C-alpha cells in the first residue's frame, strides 16, 4: 500500500506516493532522477549517499523515504546556484579533491552540512565531519585542503 510523501528537495516541493519500505535514496535516484546521490554499501558505512535533511547530513540509504515526510532535503544537485558553483565545488576543482568522483556527492553534502553547523571548523573538525565518508582515491588530504581554503574565505558564494 503506497503512502503519501510530501517534502521538498532542493527547494522544489513534491507530493508523491511511495511504498512504505522505499528508502530515501531510492526516491531521490529512482523516482526523482537525482542520480548525483550514490549508493556504495546500502548499510550507512561508506557515505556515498549522504544528503542534507533539514540542514543535517544523513545517510539516505538507511532512512525510509517516509521518514523524510515534511522535511527539507538538499542533494548535490542543489549545491550550485544556477550555473554558479558552490564554493566547496570550486575548491574541489582547484585542489583536485576527487578522482573517480563516486564519493564526491556524498562528501560535498557532508561538508556542506558541517559548514552549516560550524562555519569555521578546525582541521580536526573537518576530519571528523567526513569520517563517515570513504574516499578510496584521494586519501582525503586534498579534500581537507579544499575545505580549509573555503573556511579561510578564498571562495565567495554566488548571490
Amino acid at each position, binding site marked *: 500500500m503506497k503512502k503519501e510523501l510530501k517534502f521538498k528537495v532542493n527547494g522544489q516541493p513534491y507530493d508523491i506516493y511511495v511504498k512504505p519500505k522505499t528508502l530515501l535514496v531510492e526516491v531521490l535516484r529512482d523516482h526523482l532522477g537525482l542520480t548525483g546521490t550514490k549508493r556504495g*554499501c546500502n548499510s550507512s558505512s561508506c557515505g556515498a549517499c549522504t544528503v542534507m535533511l533539514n540542514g543535517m547530513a544523513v545517510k539516505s540509504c538507511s532512512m525510509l523515504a517516509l521518514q523524510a515526510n515534511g522535511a527539507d532535503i538538499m542533494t548535490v544537485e542543489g549545491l550550485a546556484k544556477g550555473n554558479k558553483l558552490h564554493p566547496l565545488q570550486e575548491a574541489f576543482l582547484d585542489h583536485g579533491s576527487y578522482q573517480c568522483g*563516486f564519493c564526491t556527492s556524498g562528501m560535498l553534502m557532508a561538508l556542506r552540512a558541517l559548514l552549516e553547523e560550524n562555519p569555521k571548523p578546525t582541521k580536526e573538525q573537518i576530519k571528523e565531519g567526513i569520517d563517515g565518508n570513504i574516499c578510496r582515491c584521494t586519501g*582525503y588530504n586534498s579534500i581537507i585542503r579544499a575545505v580549509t581554503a573555503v573556511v579561510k574565505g578564498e571562495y565567495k558564494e554566488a548571490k
Partner: protein
Amino acid sequence: MSKYSVIGTRVHRVDGPEKVTGSAKYTFDLVLPGMLYGKVLRSPYPHAKILKIDARKAKRLVGVKAVITGKDTIGRKQGIWRRFPELCDEEILCREKVRYIGDPVAAVAAIDEDTAEEALDLIDVEYEPLPAVFDPLEAIKEDAPQIHDGVELNININRHIEWGDVDEAFEKCDHIREDQYKCCPQAHVCMETHDAVVSYDYGGKMTVWTSTQSSYYIQRLMADMTGLREGDIRVIKPPTGGGFGSKFELDSAQFPAAILSMKLCKPIKIVLSREEEFTATKRRTPMYYYLKLGAKKDGTLLAKEARVITEGGAYTAMGATALYLTGFFSSFPYKYPNYRYDGYRAYTNTAPTSAMRGFGAPQSTFVGESQLDMMAEDLGIDPIEIRRKNGMTPNYEVPGQAFIQSCGLHQCLDKIETHIKERGKLPPNHGIGVSAYGFMSGGIFNWFDTPYAFSAAVVRINVDGKVDLFTGACDIGQGSDTTLSMICAEELGVKLEDIRIHAADTGICPPDLGAWGSRETLMNGNAVKRAAADCKRQLLEVAAAKMAPNIVYDFDIKDCWVHLVDRPERGVSYYDIVKEAIRGRDGNAIMGRGYYTPHRKGMISPAYSFGVQVAEVEVDPETGRYKLINVTTAHESGTVINPVGIEGQLEGAIMMAGGYGFCEDQPMDEGKILNPSIADYKLIRSLDMPETEILEIDTYEPEGPFGAKEAGEGLTNPTAGAIGNAVYKAVGVRINDLPITPEKVLRALKEKQKKSK
C-alpha cells in the same frame, strides 16, 4: 619559465565540472527504456559438483523474464592469459562444478531488483559437496583435493627468474639472513561496485556499458565467450567509480547480463552488491615469502633468493602476472649481481586472487624492505646508506630482464635523508621507517595476445580549431583523460580547452589495452603525442606554403601561434591555418594517427619509476595501538605532466597502501570471507589518515612522452614496509605478517619483555 605551456601546469580535470556537481552518469546511473534487472545466484559451497539446477519455480514468479545457467552459454572458459588455453579456466556461469563460495551458477532477469532477488531464492540447486582446500601450502600436498582436472598438486603456474650464480655468491658473503613473511589479501573496495548494462538487439549487435579498466579487453573476452564477432560488440566505459586492478577481466555482472540480454533482446542491468563485491570479485594475492639475502661487511649486497607460494584462489585471472611481477620486483630497486626467484601459484577454494594496484610489488617491497633494514642493522649500517650503496642507477641493465634508462633513486635518497635529519630527535615511542621502491610504466608482455598496437590514438582537427582526441585509454578516476588531453594540447600547441576527448568506447576509439600496469601516461601518452604530431605536421606544411620563408627555417605551434622557431614573432594564428588547411584539402578535416608498441625494451617495461618513502608512527606500548603521523615521499616519475593528478595519486596511494600495512585484511573460515561489508572491512578513514608530504625530484625519461613515466601504482609499493620499519624503530618489534595490527604489535612486545627478563 617552463618550456611547456600546458604540461606541468595546475589545471582542473576535464571531467571536473560533471563530477563535482553529481551530473556525471556512471554505469550505475544508467536506465534504458524497457530495461530489466539481473541478479546472480552464487555457490554457498567452496567446492562442489552441481548435480541439478531446477529453475521452474523461479520462472513462474510474476515479473521474472528469464533464468539462465551455464547451459545457456556456449560452454567456453575465459581468462586473460589468452595465449595459454590451459590458463583460461573460468566459466563465470559454472556448468559442472563450483570452486569457491561466490562462484556464479545462475542468473535471473526481472522487472526490478527485488523481484530478481526473490527469484534467486526459488532456484533449487542440488550440489554434491567436495573436500575443499583453502591454504596454498595445503593445496600443493599430494593428498589435497584437486580443484581443476589435470592440474597436479593444484599448481596453476610457476615462474623462475635467475641471473648470476646465487649459490656461489652466498659462499662469499660475510653475512646471510633468512626470513619468512606472510602477505595478506586486500580488497579493492571501488566505490562503484562492478556493474554493467548490456543491450543485445534483434540485429545481432551488442552494446555494453560497464565500469571497466579496459573496454577493449571486455570487448574481446565477451566475443570469446558469446561467439559474437568482436566488431558486433561495442563496449562503452562511462565515468567509472574506481578500478585499482579489479576491473579488467570479464566479470559476473557483464557476462550474465550479456547472456540474459541475448536471450531476451532487452537491455539488462546487473549491479553487484557490496557483499558480492567483497566475496565474489577478485582481490590482492596473498603470498608466503621466503627470502635469503647475503651481503659483504661493508653492506654490498651480493646475492638474493626469493621463494614464493601464492594463494591463487579458484581461477588464474591476472594472478599469474602478479606471480611473475612479484618475482621481478623482489630484485628492486637494487643491483643484485646474483639473483634467483622461484614462485608457485596454487589453486585454492577461495575467491580468485588477481591484480591489484602495485601488482605483486607491494608484497615484494614489504618483505624486501623489511629484511634489508634488518640486514643493515646486523651490519651496523644506516638504512639510507645501505640503499644508496646498492641502489639502481641510470642506464642499468637488470641482467637478461630489463633495461633501466632514467632512474632518480639516489636523488630520492638524498632528499629523504635531509627530511629525516630535519625532523631531528623523535619523541619517545616514535619511529621513522624507510622504504625504497620502483615500478614499471606499462607491461611489455602480451599474454592477452592482442594483434593490435598496445596503444593508439586518433586526433581530428575541426574547422573551428577544436580538436577531437579519440583514445581507448580508460579513465577510472586516475585522471588519464586529463593527462592525455594535456599531452595532446602541448604537442599541438593549443590550449587545453581546445581538446575534446572521446575515450574508451570501442565503437569509435582505437583499441588500447586499458588502465593497468601504470601504462596510460607512457604508452597512450606516446600514441597521443604521435597522433598530435601527425596533425601538426600537416598544419605546418600549410603554414610553410603560406608564409614561404627560406626553407632552412623550422615551424612550430605554441599557444595557438604558428611561427618560425628562430623568429617566433613571425607567424599566423593556429585558428586561421586550420581554416585554410581544411579549405585547401577540399573540406577534409585534419586527421592524425599515432600508436605505441614497445620494442627492444627488455621483457618487462619500457621505463621504470623510483622513489623512497618514510613513515613516522607513534606506538602506544601499553596497547600496541599506533598512529600514522606522517608519510613523506620522494617519487620520481620523469617529467610531471599533471601535477594535481600526481598529488592525488600519491596521497591516495598512501590511503590504500597504508591500509595494506595498517589494517586491511580478509579473514576467512573454511573459504568464507568473514568481513564482507564496509563496516567490518577496516580501511583508513579521514581521522586515521597521516600528514602527507611530497618531495619533488627532477628526472627525464627518454622513452616517455615529454619525458614522463608512471606515477600511479609504484606509490602503492613502499608504505607497508615503511610502516613495519617505523614500528620496529619505535618499539623494537618486527611483524612479518601483514597487516601490522595492534594485536600483533602487543603480542610481540609481550614476547620481547618475556625474553628480556
